[in-house]
């Protein structure tokens, strides 16, 4: 166990080092963070154009919370990088195995996801004229953290796809995130979609967590909120399991077919 933690720590440092090569704190703040805040505002402004402040807040809350999912799923890119860098066979033969590495490889995105959604959570609502009910809005923060975790599992599972097909990591990332963004109850309630689709949406990360967040803001009964939180945790666990099985199979198959070290 201690080894696993050390590997996760090393992988996390690796992730931050890679991020540090792309961003400085200044370019992160004024480039990436501003872009995310603009993304949220874009939809919220559309909401305000289309309807009343109620709609604006609905869209605003959804789009802030979805940032957590967006950033967590970027782990797809980090993991696909292992194949491009040719480290996959070396990871596979390390005694500790490759699985703990995946757990730590995208932690930097969870961290920035937490920061950016929290900044958006505190700054944007008053700016766009639809303030959140504090201190109740604070109770939603742990739920946002949970969404970060479950989306990370979702990202890891989809990285399995990106690692199998070459050069598709950006497609996988955008598809993964786009599905959640479009159908996950971010801009319109789930009830907008036809019933069969709605059933499938239950298995996406964020969906239940976001309902819990909305419940907290609207003062819904604690039971309802906790149930949604529980479902979110369950969905997240399921995605981690899929990720684990998928990665294990990837390496097992790679050893059999000799495809572990193909360039990405």
């Amino acid at each position, binding site marked *: 166990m201690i080894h696993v933690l*050390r590997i996760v*720590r090393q*992988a996390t440092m690796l992730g931050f*080092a890679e991020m540090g090569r792309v961003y400085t704190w200044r370019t992160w703040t004024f480039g990436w963070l501003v872009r995310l805040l603009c993304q949220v505002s874009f939809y919220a402004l559309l909401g305000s154009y289309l309807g009343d402040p109620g709609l604006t807040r609905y869209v605003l809350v959804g789009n802030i919370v979805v940032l957590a999912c967006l950033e967590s799923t970027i782990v797809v890119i980090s993991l696909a990088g292992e194949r491009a*860098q040719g*480290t996959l066979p070396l990871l596979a*033969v390390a005694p500790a195995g490759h699985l703990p590495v995946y757990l730590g490889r995208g932690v930097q995105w969870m961290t920035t996801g937490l920061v950016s959604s929290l900044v958006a959570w505190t700054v944007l609502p008053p700016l766009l004229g639809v303030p959140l009910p504090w201190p109740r809005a604070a109770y939603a923060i742990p739920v946002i953290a949970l969404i970060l975790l479950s989306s990370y599992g979702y990202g890891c599972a989809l990285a399995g796809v990106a690692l199998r097909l070459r050069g598709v990591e950006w497609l996988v990332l955008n598809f993964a995130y786009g599905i959640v963004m479009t159908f996950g109850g971010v801009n319109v309630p789930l009830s907008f979609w036809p019933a069969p689709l709605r059933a499938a949406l239950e298995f996406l990360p964020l969906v239940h967590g976001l309902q819990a967040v909305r419940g907290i803001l609207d003062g819904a009964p604690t039971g309802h909120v906790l149930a949604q939180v529980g479902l979110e945790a369950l969905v997240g666990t399921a995605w981690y399991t899929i990720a684990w099985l998928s990665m294990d199979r990837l390496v097992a198959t790679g050893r059999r077919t000799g495809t572990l070290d193909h360039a990405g």
Partner: protein
Amino acid sequence: MEAAVAASSLRRMYERRRKDAVVALDDLTLTIAQNEIHGLLGPNGAGKTTLVKILSTVLLPTSGTARVLGHDVVAETKAVRSLVGLVLGGDRGLYDRLTARRNLLFWGALYKLDSRTVRRRADALLERVGLAERADDPVERFSRGMRQRLHLARGLLHEPRVLFLDEPTSGLDPVAAVAFRRLVLELRDEGRTFLLATHDMDEATALCDRVSLIDRGRLLLTDDTSNVGRILGDRECVDFVHEDDALARDLATLPSVLDVERLDDRWRAHTADREGSRRVLAWLVERDVLTGRHAQPTLEEVYLRTVGDRGMRV
């Protein structure tokens, strides 16, 4: 003493879409003693990398068995992994955006070493491969030679008893290659075993105790490096440089000469024994040809003869 590597009837096929499967290794049997530097020679696509991958557990054999220090590479993967170090040549396999030291710390964790040990060994290894001064530079700024050395340091981190090196000096400048070889010899003195896949004949001659030639997945020969020359039929020869074809034709008629062939820049007369060579040299001196030289086939010649000169084709 147990063999460091014992491969028996190893076979590896690669399935291909809409094409026949390729045989990368065909019934290969090979034993490498402990503390040996064993060269694996062959052209591109001969199966060198496939063998290295199977022995280091990256790849499963289609059939046959292989043991590393007595542990089966398929059934006892875990035991094998902590005993072997894998050093792949080329630019890939490192985290470009991390510093050399960070790369080693990362891999140290994957080899379940505790932090203090990793730190100590990383420092020592960086010193040893001559990267101490660049330890805190990101790898993306490294030259190819520096990457190769870092690859080696990475492979040595967990102090493996057997090291598999796949084309470790390809693309190195001569000075770096010499330093690299010196390091391999030092490590052998510490009791490690090496399997060195290469197509650099000079390197194999300089380093290896024994060599194996493989081509198209088949083992052509295995022998002591110093013996390999004799494989071409235990023959003696005399090399000389001369412009005139007629002289070579005359020489060929001597009873002690088996045949005379034209090499790139010289002639070579094959003789039956040492005495024959002596007569040829004397005969040449009588005709004022002073470039005659007693020679034995080099590893390179053996390679070219055995594998065949295929030029650029693979």
